[in-house]
């Protein structure tokens, strides 16, 4: 028989568990679990496993079918044969080529690019409209610093940026309209 030393739990392909499952070890599901699963470690749903449950784990790897919402403190990976319907809340979510998924994904706070329309009207418009540029030469200290001619890498969002963190370069002529260079200071 299996030794008791931290063996992971395996639910075999013909086994069905209906109810609450909790534990502090890894769990491999090849059968069917309905209800709720709560683990401090990893849940692996392998083919032909089907889990229809609320899931709360550290890691989850899906090669089978999962229907239900998942909260993972570490990561969720939907592998090539995996099919998941439900919401995922985890800091890392990986969906590989071939995986199928439908639901919401929440990785927590993200610094998302905002429309520049939410900037104050102090002329930081990069529109190609026919509006004349009434851009003052110097702007109040409210916005992210523009470094002319340098590309700001997209992977380093500014954490302290106010509501409209526009990561833009120096406006240049589009359609023949010349906009003045604008320089704004970072708000602290």
């Amino acid at each position, binding site marked *: 028989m299996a030794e008791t030393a931290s063996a992971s739990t395996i639910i075999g392909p013909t086994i069905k568990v209906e109810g609450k499952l909790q534990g502090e070890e890894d769990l491999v599901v090849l059968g069917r679990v309905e209800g709720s699963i709560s683990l401090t470690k990893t849940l692996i749903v392998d083919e032909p496993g089907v889990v229809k449950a609320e899931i709360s784990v550290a890691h989850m790897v899906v090669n089978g079918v999962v229907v239900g919402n998942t909260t993972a403190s570490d990561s969720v990976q939907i592998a090539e044969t995996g099919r998941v319907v439900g919401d995922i809340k985890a800091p890392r979510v990986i969906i590989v080529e071939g995986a199928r998924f439908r639901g919401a994904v929440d990785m927590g706070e993200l610094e*998302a690019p905002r429309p520049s329309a939410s900037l104050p009207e102090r002329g930081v418009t990069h529109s190609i409209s026919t509006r004349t540029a009434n851009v003052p030469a110097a702007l109040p200290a409210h916005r992210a610093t523009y470094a002319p001619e340098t590309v700001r890498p997209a992977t380093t969002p500014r954490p302290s940026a106010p509501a409209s963190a526009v990561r833009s370069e120096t406006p240049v002529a589009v359609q023949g309209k010349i906009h003045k260079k604008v320089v704004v200071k970072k708000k602290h």
Partner: protein
Amino acid sequence: MAEAACIISNGIQVRGNLSGSGDLIVQGRMEGKIALQAHITVEQGGTVVANLETQELTVHGQVSGNTEASERISISNTAIYVGDLRAPKIVLEDGARFRGNIEMDVPLPKDI
């Protein structure tokens, strides 16, 4: 990949609607709406604040908006995407930052 019909390079910002059938590469900033029956690539350093309707989207940079692709969407590990995705195939790489809904066709067993 076909030669890009349009490149928004990193010093350029465009605000408005963009449509057509050639590939698009965004290295700068695009804001508005894009309806392009081709491949859109948002490179690292590129920013798009727009709803996108396309065949294929590959994101290495930052996108805010909803995308509907008829073929495929791929969010790479340098990307930040906020918004909804809908496509037959969607890939989210390890390290990608994403928040929104993802909608793919998911065939489920009948006894679910």
